[in-house]
């Protein structure tokens, strides 16, 4: 549709001016009126995209090379923002934490939902119940999930240690220990977000033609072989897409560390986005914040490009 639509308003054909409205002039006026209408409908959306999507992206790159204080004219400082941010001891920690968080979230948040979806797809009863229950945590506001788990992780009266005591296991510091805090946050994020992944996997599993399983069974494939040679190849594309989407989402994690640990203990849960927030709102260093944003943007943009590439090629194949 839109391909044929991208026709710029052509310059008027050189016709001799005549008094009576010529057919071509009429058409031209019609076309201009059409364009005015079209852009009238587009205007509100365009202004918002320009102000809150396109301009900030440019702005981030510009301010990354400026000393920027709201209210006073910015100064160009070259790469000073980048070198200041790079020499911050929390910079390394933030990237390490973010990458570890993403990796752990991928290991747990990828395997657990897949196995769950695989099992759920075999169950023939209470289907609606399972789908509702697994998605329930997604609908609870993330702030509430974070506060809830902060309470569970309380070393004295929290549910997490109560459960360990009940099972006669040694208690843990959970989110209050420098070496367990990050894992504790991954558990929260997985609990809160797993529902969506499970539902998407379920939809993908349901689209596998039953004949494939029948054929595999006739060939003597056992349960695990059927999973390996039928289920996984048939859902490989969805798995790959969800992995990429999850990487992009978890690299931007903020709410859980901000609410549960405040980045601590000992910077063990400071993430890149959290550091961006600190630069902007605690240090009042918008140049540094934008330099960090540009770095995060470059990395995530790469993942997004891969994601779009994959969706594009699947649409063409379909």
């Amino acid at each position, binding site marked *: 549709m*839109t391909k044929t639509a991208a*026709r710029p308003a052509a310059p008027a054909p050189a016709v001799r001016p005549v008094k009576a409205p010529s057919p071509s002039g009429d058409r031209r006026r019609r076309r201009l009126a059409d364009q005015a*209408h079209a852009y009238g409908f587009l205007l509100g959306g365009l202004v*918002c995209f320009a102000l809150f999507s396109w301009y*900030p992206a440019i702005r981030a790159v510009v301010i990354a090379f400026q000393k920027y204080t709201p209210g006073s004219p910015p100064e160009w400082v070259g790469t000073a923002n980048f070198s200041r941010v790079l020499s911050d001891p929390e910079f390394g920690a933030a990237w390490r934490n973010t990458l570890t968080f993403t990796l752990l979230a991928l290991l747990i948040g990828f395997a657990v939902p897949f196995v769950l979806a695989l099992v759920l797809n075999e169950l023939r009863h209470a289907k609606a119940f399972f789908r509702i229950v697994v998605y329930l945590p997604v*609908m609870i506001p993330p702030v509430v999930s974070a506060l809830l788990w902060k309470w569970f992780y309380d070393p004295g*009266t929290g549910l997490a240690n109560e459960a360990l005591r009940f099972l006669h296991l040694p208690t843990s510091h959970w989110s209050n220990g420098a070496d367990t805090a990050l894992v504790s946050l991954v558990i929260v994020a997985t609990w809160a977000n797993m529902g969506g992944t499970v539902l998407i996997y379920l*939809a993908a599993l349901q689209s596998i033609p*039953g004949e494939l399983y029948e054929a595999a069974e006739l060939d003597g494939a056992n349960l695990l072989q059927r999973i390996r040679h039928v289920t996984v190849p048939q859902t490989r594309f969805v798995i790959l897409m969800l992995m990429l989407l999850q990487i992009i989402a978890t690299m*931007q994690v903020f709410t859980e560390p901000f609410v549960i640990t405040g980045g601590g203990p000992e910077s063990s849960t400071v993430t890149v986005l959290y550091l961006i927030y600190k630069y902007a709102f605690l240090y009042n260093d918008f140049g540094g914040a934008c330099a960090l944003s540009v770095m995060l943007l470059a990395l995530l943009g790469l993942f997004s490009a891969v994601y779009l590439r994959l969706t594009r090629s699947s649409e063409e194949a379909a």
Partner: protein
Amino acid sequence: MSSTRTLVSPAVLARPRGRAIYWTVFTGVVLLFALAFLFPVYWMVTGAMKSPDEVARTPPDLLPDRWSTSGWTDAWELMQLPTHLWNTVVQAAGAWLFQLVFCTAAAYALSRLRPAFGTVVLGGILATLMVPAQALVVPKYLVVADLPLIHTSLLNDPLAIWLPAVANAFNLYLLKRFFDQLPRDVLEAAEIDGAGRLRTLWSIVLPMSRPVLGVVSIFALVAVWQDFLWPLMVFSDTDKQPISVALVQLSQNIQLTVLIAAMVIASIPMVALFLVFQRHIIAGIGAGSTKG
């Protein structure tokens, strides 16, 4: 019972051994789901009804000794929940309305009105899908704090939520794709009957687009209700803060039972929305993902 063939064949399930395994797995999954997903929610709801002493007791009680509602009333008054809930409702409803009006109009223009440079505009909009939203919050904040040309600040104003909400490429694309698939002859018939573009949009396109409008509405409402970082940045004024920001700001110096009660109250609207529309939401997630 559905007849579609899955991993395990129906013949295996029909055998006594197969049936025994099936019901064992079924019970296991029910217990696992209850423990992993329902129990934390149950713990939150009952925790809000325990007395402050009891909620700190070890080992904890599964049921409150005495069901107390003082946590709820205290939360309602001490944490000014009516104010914050109202702020959230205003922010969510406005974002929904702005998105519905401007995204629908823009999607309609891109789909049907053939604007000059339409593909360029659409490309620019879709490109924002590649840019992770959260990574741009700081420059976006600077734009909102000092709008270009008119030099006005939207900080502490619900417009700071409403206007950026319109720049939602995902919803706009959903709408455009739906409009693309509407039958051409119906729209042309309307044009021949002399209906203007606004009239066609209002009385022909929108009534035919109820399913997609429903999906976009739910996405819009949920996104605002669940958001935290952006409202945390733009609402420094406590009286303007939505419930998510207020909960975190107040969580430091408030009694635990009161905080838990407030958490339950903050969750009720979205959980209720989900329970009412669960069929559509769950179907939408599955369909949206497999069909690209």
